[in-house]
């Protein structure tokens, strides 16, 4: 293996390949900041360029750089304008945006950058050492376990079920799950709940719903409430401030460490991926945090920001395990990468390490390098990026609206998406006025489709629901989900009882 690593190092450290990493990271970061363009579309755009290069190692290094850059750039729009353009950065906005609102945008971006860097780096190291061994882990999960894993992911909504909010959070989750059933599912060959509207045939698109639930109501709130915009309130100095206090660093590093490993393992599963990893990371960290820290989650906790960022980056790296060792892409993005590999006459799979060791190792080494370069390139840029929020609100609001609308339009070129966005956005704003949390709705929507697909597949395979008792791992995961949901409620109740006694 040492030989392989050295081979990888010597391939990566050539001037051209380093330029590839830098170029890829920059392109990825900047395009990734636009909410409508996730890693998948950016990589798709870059593929003809990469194939034009001809050398498979260099091409893959470029694409890996673009991939990391895009994931990193994606969290920027979540944090600054509450517009998560990719499902895996939805959890980032839970705490990242409140932090930015409190005038700590610079700090939030720095925490995200460091968490991403650590997640990606730990992921690359794990990939380097364990990739061949993990191939079998990737195949460990059946539909039954994926179903149970999605249920565990749903427990992330507990973070929004504060005192008196439990009923509201549950209702919003159910609404999200219901919205996920619109359109043609994988299980039925007929469209459901489309009301005859053609544009609903393929279901609601994630990006439209995400913009409608998060970014648009936020922009409307900014219009309605002048005091919400912090421009000109003397906080500009702080917006640019990057520094993380020693105490905060101490709090986030264990989180980053845990989530890098957990995220990587979830990423290895071809049916899970970065989104599930980020929700699970958020849910788990919230539940093991102390009482007062737990209350901070959803209101601007650095822990709540670091957890999903570390987890989704580590998961992205983890998704290279099934791609490189089995030739199975675990996500849309890795599916496109697989297409690029085949076009370059490289067949991923168990033979890759034997037939093309320099590609295998140089991709892994370049991931590590890509993460490093991303951090070095972006830390100095953060003050300038964060300054966007210091723009006077009469310029900032149109800017947010433009990004929101463009995000929903750009992927599909379908103007009806814009109508849906505005309609759903108005509904979401009303719900927000009534103090309903919107995050559970989006979590329900994202997980709903996978939850249903895996559940009905497991039902079909076992001719009934007894797969839950027959498969110990499914049972275990479901028990874990129950604990994650019930424990915080129990603890809150205990705390209430105690304080009542204290009175």
């Amino acid at each position, binding site marked *: 293996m040492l030989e392989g690593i050295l081979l990888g190092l010597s391939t990566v450290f050539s001037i051209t390949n380093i330029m590839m990493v830098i170029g890829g990271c920059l392109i990825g970061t900047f395009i990734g900041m636009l909410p409508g*363009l996730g890693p*998948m*579309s950016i990589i*798709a*755009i870059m*593929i*003809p360029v990469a*194939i034009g290069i001809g050398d498979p190692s260099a091409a893959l290094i470029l694409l890996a750089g673009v991939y990391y850059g895009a994931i990193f750039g994606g969290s920027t729009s979540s944090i600054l304008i509450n517009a998560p353009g990719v499902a895996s950065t939805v959890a980032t906005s839970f705490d990242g945006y409140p932090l930015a609102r409190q005038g700590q945008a610079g700090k939030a971006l720095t925490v995200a950058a460091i968490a991403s860097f650590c997640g990606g780096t730990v992921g690359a190291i794990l990939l380097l050492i364990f990739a061949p061994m993990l191939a079998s882990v*990737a*195949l*460990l*999960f*059946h*539909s039954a376990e994926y179903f149970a894993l999605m249920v565990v992911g749903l427990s992330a909504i507990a973070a929004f079920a504060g005192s008196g909010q439990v009923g509201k959070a549950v209702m919003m989750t159910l609404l999200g799950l219901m919205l996920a059933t619109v359109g*043609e*599912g*994988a*299980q*039925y*060959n*007929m*469209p459901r709940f489309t009301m005859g509207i*053609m*544009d609903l*045939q*393929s279901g609601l698109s994630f990006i439209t719903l995400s913009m409608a639930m998060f970014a648009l109501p936020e922009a409307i709130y900014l219009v309605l409430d002048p005091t919400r915009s912090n421009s000109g309130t003397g906080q500009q100095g702080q917006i640019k401030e990057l520094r993380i206090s020693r105490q905060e660093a101490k709090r986030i590093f264990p989180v980053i460490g845990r989530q890098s490993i957990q995220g990587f393992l979830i990423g290895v599963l*071809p*049916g899970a991926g970065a989104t599930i990893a980020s929700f699970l990371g958020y849910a788990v960290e919230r539940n093991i945090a102390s009482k007062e820290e737990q209350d901070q989650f959803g209101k601007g906790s650095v822990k709540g920001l670091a957890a999903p960022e570390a987890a989704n980056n580590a998961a992205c790296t983890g998704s290279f395990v*099934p791609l490189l060792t*089995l*030739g*199975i*892409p*675990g996500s*849309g993005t890795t*599916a*496109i990468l*697989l*297409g*690029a590999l*085949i*076009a370059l006459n490289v*067949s*991923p*799979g*168990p*033979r890759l390490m034997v037939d093309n060791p320099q590609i295998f190792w140089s991709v892994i080494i370049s991931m590590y390098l890509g993460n490093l370069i991303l951090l070095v390139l972006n830390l100095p840029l953060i003050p300038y990026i964060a300054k966007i929020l210091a723009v006077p609100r009469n310029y900032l609001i149109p800017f947010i609206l433009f990004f929101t609308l463009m995000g929903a339009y*750009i*992927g*599909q*070129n*379908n103007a*009806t998406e814009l109508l849906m966005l505005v309609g759903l956005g108005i509904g979401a704003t009303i719900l927000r006025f009534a103090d309903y949390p919107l995050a559970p709705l989006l979590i329900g929507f994202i997980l709903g*489709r996978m939850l249903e*697909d895996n559940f009905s*597949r497991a039902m*079909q*395979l076992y*001719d009934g629901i007894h797969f839950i008792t027959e498969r110990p791992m499914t049972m275990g995961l479901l028990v874990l989900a129950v604990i994650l949901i019930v424990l915080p409620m129990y603890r809150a109740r205990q705390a209430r009882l105690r304080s009542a006694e204290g009175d």
Partner: protein
Amino acid sequence: MLNTMRTMAAASIIAAATLGLSAPAFADGHQMLEKIHFLIPGGAGGGWDGTARGTGEALTESGLVGSASYENMSGGGGGKAIGYLIENADSNHGTLMVNSTPIVIRSLTKVFPQSFRDLSLVAGTIGDYAAIVVSKDSEINDMAGLVAAYKADPKKVAIGGGSVPGGMDHLVAAMAMQAAGEDPTKVKYIPYDAGAKAMAGLLSGEVIALSTGFSEAVEQAKAGEVKIIGVTSDERVPAFEEAKTLKEQGLDTSFVNWRGFFAAPGLPAEKLQAYQDVITKMYDTDEWEAVRARNGWVNIHNSGDEFLTFLENQEKVIGDLMKQLGFL
């Protein structure tokens, strides 16, 4: 889209997708058409998108067509673009719409009201065969083995695929069982949301066999991870000669998942002929060969009347089977 991941893996080339660049003109004397506008019924990055942009690239770079432009119009599983082309037929004489096998299935299931008969048929250009696949450790080595297991207890033979029940992968599995003289309605079909997910299901042992696209299974088969026990082509496919066809194993059935181009209804005959000629000519160019090889496409050329016969035949076979399976 239902098969987003599969189609994306198959057609990874999206030339400057969202930037909407049109290719430059290299008019070097043998230009046959000034320009073509491609209408793509799905979003950027899908299989239809890759087909249209790849074809446009080959046509313009070889100089056969002056310039190409592209328009993505998603919605209604492709129905929106079909409706648009029919309603605005007169102003769309310069437009070619890309489509594929699902247009046949979806008009049968009445997902959209129109069918291929409402359009001018230009040509089927590329395709992929379907394949029945088992994992390398499976005791099953050929179709006879699979049929025997099916005969013993169809409930124990879970067959996975990357499309919905009643979709392509399900139909191919049912077709094979029907050809073997078994009851196709008993096929225990397990749908996944993409071909790659279905492949993971096969490798994890969740399903016994997989019905999938041939080109999707080839890499895995070459690596020795899976065994292709049957291909739906008439002859063995050069890309992987070892894989036996269904026909040579005594199952008299074949299937092609095609992609091709349609034009507005009422298109003048000479205009239609010009499109067909330019596509026929395209197959001889190096530029097309480069695009084709890059995407792993198989040339399956059906022009004009042949295309109509092919589609009518496919519609009949699929329609009869879907009726029997209770989907119609």
